[in-house]
């Protein structure tokens, strides 16, 4: 059940309250997941990280973390609550699906009614992305239930509830727009260009050794394209930049120790530039927060090689891609001749 923020609360307090609410729910009803015996501790750790980011002023990153947890714990809770009742009964699954679909549809309607013109684009992006996931998760869960066992579909439809609640929560936040609105637009040319690069890179041995990383990039690109198609351009931009990051991680080398101070300076300069721009740069700020969080270990330990690499990819590739997106690319020319359509039926998020 979604707890809407109290009127008059500022966004930072609202985010903190939501993370603490989920912590309390998790304490009352710990998650138990056979595929991952450590799931409860991991979800708890993610909420602690979200609270640390919030207290460090990294509001968008904190929200992003809460969204991840909300998806997962709602999925597991739904399995815990309904597996016994559903067992192998398709009608019992359908009954649960109908109930949950109605709940998700109501939340989606509430979220879609939000007027984003006075809100930072990063909030819009997080809300749009979560809201766009609800229907594929509902339909995919039903597909699993029909094709395998009814109880196999429960996790995904529970995730849909988690995403819908998160989308509605973000839409309810009281965070004013800082500066002029970001000029959102379709990113189809950029997405097509990056997809081409990813396809070209998918060659053995990397297509074998880095299979999981390719899945991550391709699912991000798919989400971006879906969001773009529904004119959810803030979400599309955010997912595009995430895919730029993930592709960059595939290609970039390690950050030498001698470059680390310069990288930290570059990150600080990027933050200053964004803060002073006079325009809403919140989507770029989300990525800067991500890089800052990677390099600022809460326990004081040194960042890992991947943390450094991630920060360097954000500075060297994601932020340039963000600023380059200010200028619309020409749509790719279609070559004349016969056309065919290749369709890949897939799980939406792998």
């Amino acid at each position, binding site marked *: 059940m979604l707890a809407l923020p109290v009127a008059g609360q500022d966004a930072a307090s609202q985010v903190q309250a939501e993370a603490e609410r989920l912590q309390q729910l998790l304490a009352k009803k710990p998650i138990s997941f056979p595929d991952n015996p450590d799931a409860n501790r991991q979800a708890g750790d993610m909420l602690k990280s979200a609270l640390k980011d919030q207290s460090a002023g990294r509001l968008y990153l904190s929200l992003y973390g809460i969204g991840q947890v909300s998806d997962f714990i709602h999925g597991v809770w739904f399995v815990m609550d309904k597996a016994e009742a559903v067992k192998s009964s398709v009608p019992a699954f359908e009954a649960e699906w109908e109930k949950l679909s109605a709940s998700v549809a109501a939340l989606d309607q509430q979220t879609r009614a939000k007027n984003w013109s006075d809100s930072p684009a990063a909030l819009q992006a997080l809300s749009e992305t979560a809201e766009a996931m609800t229907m594929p998760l509902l*339909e995919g869960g039903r*597909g699993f239930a029909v094709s395998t066992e009814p109880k196999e579909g429960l996790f995904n439809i529970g995730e849909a509830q988690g995403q819908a609640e998160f989308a509605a929560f973000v839409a309810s936040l009281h965070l004013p727009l800082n500066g002029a609105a970001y000029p959102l637009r379709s990113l189809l040319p950029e997405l097509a260009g990056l997809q081409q690069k990813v396809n070209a890179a998918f060659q053995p041995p990397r*297509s074998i050794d880095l299979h999981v990383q390719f899945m991550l990039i391709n699912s991000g690109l798919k989400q971006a394209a879906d969001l773009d198609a529904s004119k959810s351009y803030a979400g599309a931009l955010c997912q595009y930049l995430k895919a730029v990051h993930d592709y960059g991680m595939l290609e970039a080398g390690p950050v030498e120790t001698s470059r680390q101070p310069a990288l930290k300076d570059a990150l600080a300069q990027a933050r200053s530039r964004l803060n002073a721009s006079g325009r809403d740069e919140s989507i770029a700020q989300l990525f800067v927060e991500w890089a800052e969080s990677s390099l600022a270990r809460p326990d004081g330990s040194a960042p890992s090689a991947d943390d450094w690499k991630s920060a360097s990819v954000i500075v060297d590739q994601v932020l340039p891609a963000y600023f380059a997106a200010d200028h619309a690319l020409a749509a790719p020319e279609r070559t004349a001749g016969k056309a065919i359509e290749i369709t890949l039926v*897939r799980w939406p998020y792998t």
Partner: protein
Amino acid sequence: MNENFGTSKLADRLGVKGYPAVFVDDILVACPRDFGYFREKIGLGRYAPWQNADNQAKFKADLTHMIDLILAGKKDSALRESEATSAALNQLLTLPKFELMDLNGQALTSEQLAGRAVLVEFWATWCPPCRSTLDWLGELKSKYGDKLAILALAVESPEDKIHSVAASLSPGLRVAITDAATAEAFGNITSVPTMFLFDRSGKTARVVYGAPPDLHAQVAEVLESLVD
């Protein structure tokens, strides 16, 4: 384009219940069974395991072949190939039961083959690649002798021409004219050459459609594991 599992009308129409599935236009090229995925038995699919360079290359080649056929205006051929693959994979986990009469008038049944590795080649007199494959099968028979039963089953060909071709083949090959029941039992053979390899327990070890350049190497590799 991408479609989400659970909402694909193409997948529904063609009875594909899982993911991944790949279509060119409305022709099914690959489904979960081919990748050994989505509750399928890992290792049995044409492209399984997926994290293998040869399997990825094979998938790319098959997809390219299907695209080329459609762009060349041969959609009917593409559809036949797709159906043949699908039907064969659907039905042929083991050597099916059949009863035929060979060209010498002797009964040729699946029961006679129990306990032996079996190679079944579907061929036609009008199919040039089939002829060269049949000649090579004679060499295999010489090499493996009684350890390997080789059946050359003719489809959709004039009987006199079948006899004419058979006369030139190794006498170790069992040649017969396929009847409708046998063709159906093997998954409705709609393209030639099509070759099936079965192990001594009757389990399908390999199905090869057409005459790929590496046919001999593919088959030799499988036979090494089937015939001691």
